[in-house]
């Protein structure tokens, strides 16, 4: 099949270019079968072919993504919808087989009945079945016997980094997709925000170049995975020059960016809307469709 062919062709290339820094040392378990390719520190600046200038210049860029780490906060409409459906479920569900799960008259059964009464009251308000005095007293006795339970305290959904406005933290904005943006000097010597990028060496595969360039700009203290061997988009910085920037999607698995401070001055983990405010209009038009809206 095609996928397998693609894989095998890639393997042959890998054996040719042993210097590709594709090892993940920080988080993922190493594959014993795969040949170790971490032979040294990756070269910082990609060397361009020194022969006659090629017609087209290819460059590889990486959209490094931190996926959402907590579930999305439902909208008020969603909340009331789910509450309504839960009430329907509670009203129409099959009878619960108490005797199958609890020994009749056991403490646990009493506890379950008390909890169930609370849930019923929360769903439908006070009714005659939930406000039976004898049953309430009985459940109080049960709870006294069982003693106080540990109260599970949930972690806050808003992280400290959100309160401080720290855009370098990987814990910020846990519900959203974040993308890595670097601040560097462009060809004209102007300070711009852009995605990690770099050149492609002679006879190097684009996705290998993407991985190498990412490590060259972000340091070795980061574990990443380039999702696909296919680029997800292409951008031509200026229509007059034949330079093409191919974008690859990657995920961060562990670690943090440590720019060298020479070429890269700053970095930030940003959502799609925040990226729009930092990058140039033309660049934004080129990359906006590669980023997830949420």
């Amino acid at each position, binding site marked *: *099949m*095609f*996928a*397998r062919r693609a894989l095998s062709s890639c393997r042959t290339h890998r054996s040719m270019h042993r210097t590709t820094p594709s090892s993940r040392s920080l988080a993922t378990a190493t594959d014993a*079968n795969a040949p170790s390719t971490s032979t040294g520190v990756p070269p910082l600046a990609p060397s361009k072919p020194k022969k006659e200038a090629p017609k087209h210049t290819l460059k590889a860029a990486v959209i490094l993504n931190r*996926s*959402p780490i907590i*579930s*999305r906060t*439902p909208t008020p409409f*969603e909340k009331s*919808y*789910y509450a309504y*459906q*839960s009430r*329907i*479920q509670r009203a*129409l569900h*099959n*009878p619960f087989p108490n005797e*199958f*799960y609890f020994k009749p008259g056991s403490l646990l059964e009493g506890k379950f009945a008390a909890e169930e009464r609370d849930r019923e009251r929360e769903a439908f308000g006070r009714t005659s079945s939930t406000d039976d005095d004898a049953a309430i007293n009985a459940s109080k006795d049960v709870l006294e016997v069982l003693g106080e339970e540990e109260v599970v305290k949930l972690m806050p959904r808003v992280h400290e980094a959100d309160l401080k406005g720290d855009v370098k933290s990987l814990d910020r904005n846990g519900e959203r*997709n974040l993308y890595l943006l670097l601040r560097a000097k462009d060809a004209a010597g102007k300070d711009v925000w852009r995605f990690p990028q770099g050149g492609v060496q002679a006879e190097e595969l684009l996705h290998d170049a993407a991985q190498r360039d990412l490590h060259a700009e972000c340091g070795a203290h980061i574990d990443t995975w380039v*999702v*696909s061997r*296919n680029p*997800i988009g292409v951008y031509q910085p200026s229509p007059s020059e034949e330079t093409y920037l191919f974008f690859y*999607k990657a*995920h961060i698995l562990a670690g943090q960016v440590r720019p060298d401070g020479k070429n890269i001055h700053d970095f930030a983990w940003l959502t799609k809307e925040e990226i729009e405010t930092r990058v140039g209009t033309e660049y934004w038009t080129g990359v906006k469709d590669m980023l*997830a809206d*949420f």
Partner: protein
Amino acid sequence: MSAAVAVQRTAAQVTRRAARPIRIRKPLRRNEKTGLPIPHVNVILRDTQQSRVADHYYNTLQDDLMYMTYVHEPHARKAPRVIRSLFDPEDPYTMNRFNPIAGGSRWAREVPPPTTSENVVKLERIQLHSMQKSAVTNRSNLLGAIMAFRAISGESIGAGGRRTTDGVQVIRGKKSIGNWLREGVPIGVKVDLKGPKMYEFLATLVDFVLPRLKEYPGVVMPSPKSPLNTPHGASGVVSFGLPPEAMVYFPQIEINVDAYPALYGMHIHFITNAQGVGAQNSVRALLSGFQIPFARR
């Protein structure tokens, strides 16, 4: 005339405002078996909560899988070679003839359609299936398995007012085989999981069951040399089995293991929309995204 209409309207508004809620004269009909009230309308239960695993699929996996399975095809595909005329209601020759495809059906040899954002590989349903040999001699041996499957899946017939929910089904023998199986004898149970329940089961499997299995290497994959253009490789279904010991680790069973006469193993089939040569590989990529481990033998 318009004035008359306006007067009528105001009158109607006044009466509507004055109307009280309709008194319920007749109590709801009750189900004879269960004694539960039957509502006047067909109430259909929809999602009662957010699904974390489904969100993960739509936020992250779907994009990644599209990029991973995309194959660039700069030119349009050639039309398949027609070996002989196929069924065509307009053609008087083929109209009323039995006209099978020469060489049999070759659906498993077809190349999958080009990947677009519309047809990214997606989980459609999960089927749990368990055959109990002891049920051949005594059909009541199946009851424990039915109860366990009900607890694990939470499905029952027509649950939530949905006609498509079949609950736990009893499988009967299709044909007689020697002195082992007879036709029509209950031999196993199965249950189909779809939608939120399916994702819930997947989360339970990945978070509670698989990590607690002793020395579990992962789902063992067939050798890389096995052909991908067979029905097995091209139907977009990945299956594996769980041993009887694994059933204890489902939290729904764990709470009262003693209530079950035995522990039951099961087959789990992940059924997706992927089709064509090599569909199995993209399904494995999908399942691996849900954190199901795969291993080479």
